[in-house]
């Protein structure tokens, strides 16, 4: 088996999320260096605050300020920080119950080493210098020797409250297409179209994905198809795609390569767009160094009879 193809694949989105009234007050508070909790019907104060009581599911909105100091309820030493984590030097993950709160907040604790961290230790918030209304407005926690800091009793009402957050997310992968598609792509680089035949229904799949979706069986027998094929159906594209150097209108078509059990698609060139028709016989046009055909052009053969491709539409 030839070497498996691989390529880097990055999936990256800026997720834009709107906030409920309690989340908005909490994150706006962080921007203003104020920590707000929410009181439940049973008198518990939840920090970080949520929109609905986790026990009764009732809507809650009674905001109460808590202190920027608190107590570690559990911790874990992270000697090798990962990308996008709060600190880029070794730190402790901590759950911290802030003074005045009944529940704990997850964040990082900046400490010199694991021996300096223990459950029950006192910590305080270190604010980020630039704050926008996000959980990262808390840069991290740091050890705190002094007395509890009193909360000022903020009402939870702010001017210019944040109503949403933008949370960038990026994940990096190494994509490999598997056996069947690797074989297809490698053959294509040699200007050959190689499909795979189902051992049961004998249909030839191009491009192959390794399985026959009708029979649920592995396709392994390789079959070279084409190079000539038949236009089974087509459309005329009138919208110019961004960054695409093709003049409109042009024709995009389904092409059943000779010997293939289904059509693949490609652009038709070398003929005026309004002369392309079902049954037109075409062949691939390769450009120097390309791993796939640039487009297909007419071969000059007589048009295929409809009955030869009616099952491939």
């Amino acid at each position, binding site marked *: 088996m030839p070497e498996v193809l691989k390529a880097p694949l990055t999936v990256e989105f800026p997720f834009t999320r709107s906030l409920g009234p309690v989340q908005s007050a909490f994150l706006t508070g962080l921007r203003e260096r104020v920590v707000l909790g929410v009181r439940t019907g049973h008198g518990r104060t939840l920090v970080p605050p949520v929109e609905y009581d986790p026990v009764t599911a009732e809507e809650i909105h009674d905001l109460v300020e808590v202190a920027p100091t608190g107590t570690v309820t559990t911790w*874990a030493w992270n000697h090798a920080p990962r990308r996008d984590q709060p600190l880029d030097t070794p730190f402790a993950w901590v759950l911290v119950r802030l003074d005045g709160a009944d529940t704990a907040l997850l964040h990082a604790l900046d400490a010199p080493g694991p021996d300096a961290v223990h459950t029950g230790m006192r910590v305080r918030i270190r604010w980020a210098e630039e704050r926008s209304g996000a*959980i*990262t407005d808390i840069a991290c926690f740091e050890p705190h020797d002094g007395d509890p800091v009193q909360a000022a009793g903020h009402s939870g009402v702010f001017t210019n409250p944040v109503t949403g957050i933008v949370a960038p997310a990026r994940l990096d992968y190494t994509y490999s297409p598997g056996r069947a598609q690797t074989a297809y792509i490698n053959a294509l680089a040699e200007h050959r179209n190689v499909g795979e035949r189902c051992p049961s229904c004998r249909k030839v799949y191009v491009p192959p994905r390794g399985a026959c979706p009708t029979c649920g069986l592995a396709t392994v027998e390789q079959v070279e198809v084409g190079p000539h094929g038949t236009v089974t159906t087509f459309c005329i594209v009138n919208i110019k795609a961004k960054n695409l150097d093709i003049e409109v209108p042009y024709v995009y078509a389904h092409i059943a390569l000779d010997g293939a059990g289904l059509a693949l698609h490609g652009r038709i060139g070398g003929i005026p767009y309004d002369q392309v028709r079902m049954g037109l016989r075409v062949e691939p046009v390769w450009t120097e160094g390309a791993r796939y055909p640039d487009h297909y052009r007419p071969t000059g053969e007589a048009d295929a009879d409809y009955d030869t491709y009616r099952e491939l539409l």
Partner: protein
Amino acid sequence: MNREIAVVAFAQTDHRRTSEELSEVEMLMPVLHEVLARTGLKTSDIGFTCSGSSDYLAGRAFSFTLALDGVGAWPPIAESHVEMDGAWALYEAWTKLLTGDADTALVYSYGKSSPGSLRDVLTRQLDPYYVAPLWPDSVALAALQAQALIDAGDTDEPALASVAARSRTDATANSHAQLRGSVPQGDYVVRPLRTGDCPPIGDGAAAVILAAGERARELCDRPAWIRGIDHRIEAHSLGVRDLTDSPSTRFAAEKAGAFQRPVDTAELHAPFTSQEVVLRKALKLGDGVRVNPSGGALAANPVMAAGLIRIGEAAARVHRGESDRALAHATSGPCLQQNLVAVLEGDPR
């Protein structure tokens, strides 16, 4: 409606660090064929098909639709998918069979963790407002739970190491396992969890066939009857929970009837050693219960399939006559966020 439903067949891949030479459907297909062959069923005989997987693992959008090629989904079949572990796909299939709409169901799940960085990928399932922006990885969150257990006096590092050692020793009898035999505890990954306390990262797939009533008896000499199955979830904020306990597991077990009579076997989905401590407590498992004879998730943890594999392993022991009443557990999310419990029984011998 009261219908008896059983697991009648189970198959799984060998779980490996990477399966880069295979696409997802190529990895899955042998398992589908194996589970069908065990019952003599053909694709067209299956009444309902349900799968579990997550596109985030391999970074491939709609990968589950491509995986359907391996089932023979054309002409269209009755089919569903959950973006969850296959144990929850099995739950959906079980409810489908309960309605009487189908007599047999194919359940499968697969996960390819090798293309991405699993610890980072799993951060994307967390609360997007307060937690995910901090990128706390899966080991870090499990380590917070482990430290809470140590602080509570429920366990210590040597006890965790013994869970790891027992699991990998048991896995020597499991040819599908990824990690088996003598595995060093190693250094801290995120303290207090060491390499040995963490599951291997790998790729794999599993499939199960369910059948109702007499159909189950036709397809299997000793069906593993699902006497009860239930799933429950904790509050989503980690700081609201008592991380040393799992009330959702206990509640699910109660609803599944697990406490009505003792079980002889338990397959627990505890990817981290410390989580077995929590589950044993929540499920009130005594010393007489054989826990994770397969080696459990510490021996092979193909994400999205590892929970279904627990049900499959428990059922396979019933099939082989090695268990009469087994508990199977599956989990999802950080620190045992969501838990499913099933109770399986064989006919009296």
